[in-house]
């Protein structure tokens, strides 16, 4: 099908975009990469009265180091994250996840901010933001505010952004020493929506005990699912198969709430979550140990 008519604006600065958004408010949609919004418009599921195209707001497309943190502009293309050496250095977890984000043709257009603001529970990038402890900056005409990734995602395709706010920047903190990572997912084909996926970050202390762990799942509930209880089991422990098994059990039975779909029942998704938890934890722990321990 074809999109319904809309009024089109293409600001070339953030200030202009914010003013337009304030003027048109709830009737307006922001167009980032368009890889989720345009299909929805083609289906006429979404029919905005006004479309504000951010693709000429070049000040929102950057990856730069700022002290210890990495700052990424919301309009940075997914393809850029995939190949940028600063991303690879600061956030190997993000780099590892990028090839799983849809197909290259989609990553060439899709943006980090667009994916986060879309808040699809099956998307990889929201999960990565939670796992990395990212902070997100929103702007409106009167100012800016920062949110923790945890507070940003508020449900199925829903975020904490107000109607007059634009997500403008994502801040990634550096990994602590002796941190290992892993991203794994199971999809019917490369680039398809995954049936289940997990991002794991594990930080060990000098003696090889776990200082901190994070496990975040996609397609496991109505947003990125942070398995905090399972992560606690590993805290202070020497990682071993029994602990990993207990974590996988807790995640797959209790902490996720997958809905099931045409490709997989919720039982099968729970099974996959257990399998992926074991594999991802082992890889993350191994990588943490490679970082100068013993």
């Amino acid at each position, binding site marked *: 099908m074809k999109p319904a008519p*809309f009024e*089109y604006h293409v600001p070339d600065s953030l200030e202009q975009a914010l003013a337009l958004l304030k003027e048109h408010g709830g009737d307006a949609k922001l167009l980032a990469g368009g890889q989720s919004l345009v299909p929805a418009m083609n289906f006429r599921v979404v029919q905005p009265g006004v479309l504000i195209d951010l693709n000429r707001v070049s000040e929102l497309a950057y990856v730069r180091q700022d002290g210890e943190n990495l700052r990424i502009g919301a309009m940075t293309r997914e393809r850029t994250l995939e190949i940028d050496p600063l991303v690879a250095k600061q956030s190997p977890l993000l780099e590892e996840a990028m090839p799983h984000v849809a197909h290259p043709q989609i990553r060439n257009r899709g943006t980090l901010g667009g994916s986060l603001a879309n808040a699809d529970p099956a998307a990889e990038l929201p999960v990565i933001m939670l796992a990395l402890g990212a902070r997100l900056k929103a702007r409106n005409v009167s100012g800016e505010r920062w949110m923790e990734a945890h507070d940003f995602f508020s449900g199925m395709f829903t975020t904490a952004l107000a109607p007059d706010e634009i997500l403008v920047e994502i801040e990634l903190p550096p990994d602590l020493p002796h941190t290992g990572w892993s991203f794994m997912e199971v999809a019917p084909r490369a680039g398809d929506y995954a049936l289940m996926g997990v991002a794991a970050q594990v930080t060990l202390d000098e003696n090889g005990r776990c200082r901190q762990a994070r496990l975040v799942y996609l397609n496991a509930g109505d947003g990125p699912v942070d398995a905090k209880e399972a992560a606690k089991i590993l805290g202070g422990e020497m990682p071993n198969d029994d602990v990993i098994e207990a974590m996988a059990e807790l995640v797959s039975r209790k902490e996720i709430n997958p809905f099931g779909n045409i490709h997989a029942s919720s039982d099968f998704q729970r099974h996959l979550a257990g399998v992926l938890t074991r594999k991802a934890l082992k890889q993350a722990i191994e990588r943490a140990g490679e970082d100068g321990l013993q």
Partner: protein
Amino acid sequence: MKQLCAVNVTVNGVSYQREVEPRLLLSDFLRHELNLTGTHVGCEHGVCGACTILFDGQSVRSCLIFAVQADGHSVTTVEGLAKSVDQLHPLQQAFWEAHGLQCGYCTPGILMTMIPFLEENPNPTEMEIRQALSGNLCRCTGYQHIVDAVKLAAEKMR
């Protein structure tokens, strides 16, 4: 009143100026405004890959971009590959020789996906080829001859 927006776009090296409704998809602009019907439209929601073109040299779905967004940009469609009717692009020649198509509906999108892929990966493995093809649906071939054609093309283009 219908809003009309100016589009100045270079397609296959030729500059075009048009006025379009902002809701016009780039795929429809290429086909109906410029009569470049080599770009095929399959699903119109970014799944099938038939409408893949190069946008500033990168493969993208033309059904997920509005024509107005192409203003000031450069587009290459399948019509831009062959130097002449008698001289196919090596990638097209390989698809001809290896019989990398049946009905041909998905072929333009596959070619426009493989052009940047082979530029970045001149010597791909079969697994890499299959992964690179994963965003393009073919309902005839079972992909085997397409994979063969891409392997042959890689040899020709190296």
